[in-house]
């Protein structure tokens, strides 16, 4: 089955990203195909490479980057949500006159149309959030 995932909550505060990660990993290991992972609302905070959690805890951001590398996942941060919350790639930082970017490897920034397209193209769209 071809599935997509929407994650609506940020890391650590909320379980959504953890559960979405375990779901996605299990589904991929089971042979299913992931069309896209879309991060919305505070979920865009899963895509900052500046996160530095304690050594004895899981690194939620790196975990997504590694899974993306292994399975060639399409990790998309919503541009409007990211702008509000200070998540930027090099182009976005330049466009908004900021002196730094913070997007983590394996993530990209794009529009909400990517979420709608994921709904159209996938057999199932699974939401993780409140």
């Amino acid at each position, binding site marked *: 089955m071809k599935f997509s995932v929407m994650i609506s909550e940020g890391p650590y505060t909320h379980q959504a990203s953890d559960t979405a990660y375990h779901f996605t990993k299990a589904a991929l290991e089971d042979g299913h195909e992931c069309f896209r992972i879309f991060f919305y*609302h505070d979920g865009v905070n899963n895509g900052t490479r500046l996160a530095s959690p304690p050594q004895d805890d899981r690194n939620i951001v790196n975990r997504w980057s590694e899974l993306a590398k292994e399975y060639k996942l399409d990790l998309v941060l919503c541009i409007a949500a990211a702008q509000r919350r200070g998540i930027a790639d090099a182009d976005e930082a330049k466009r908004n006159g900021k002196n730094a970017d913070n997007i983590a490897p394996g993530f990209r920034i794009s529009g*909400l149309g990517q979420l*709608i397209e994921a*709904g*159209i193209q996938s057999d199932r*769209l699974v*939401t993780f959030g409140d």
Partner: protein
Amino acid sequence: MPETKKFLYVNRKAPYGTIYAQEALEVVLIGAAFEQDVSLAFLDDGVYQITKGQNTKEVSMKNFSLTYKALGDYDVNKIYVEQESLDARGLTLDDLLPLAWEDEDDDWAKKDSIKVVSAAEMAKIMEQSDIVFSF
């Protein structure tokens, strides 16, 4: 993308305590460009999102409730509001924004977009949808 799917946007939260309502509306507006079959549902505290007379001046937040009035122009004209959620909050249809659309197949007659439905009917609407976004 030739396929048309039934999209349902479920709005369950009050408009200003969290950002979900505002960002949900952004998805609806973008999604309208994809020519899918779109419906909106308002239940629980989500019914407050489309109440009349919202004034956010004192809290310095954007009053995005006026944007709902534009939905008809985006061909988003199936708006379901749960009766039980209205009842529990002492609200009636008269407390809601008069959301309407113009039917081009009926000499541009102005028609109401809002339909008040029971929880049981809402469950059926959800069941019949292909994609359910819950905000």
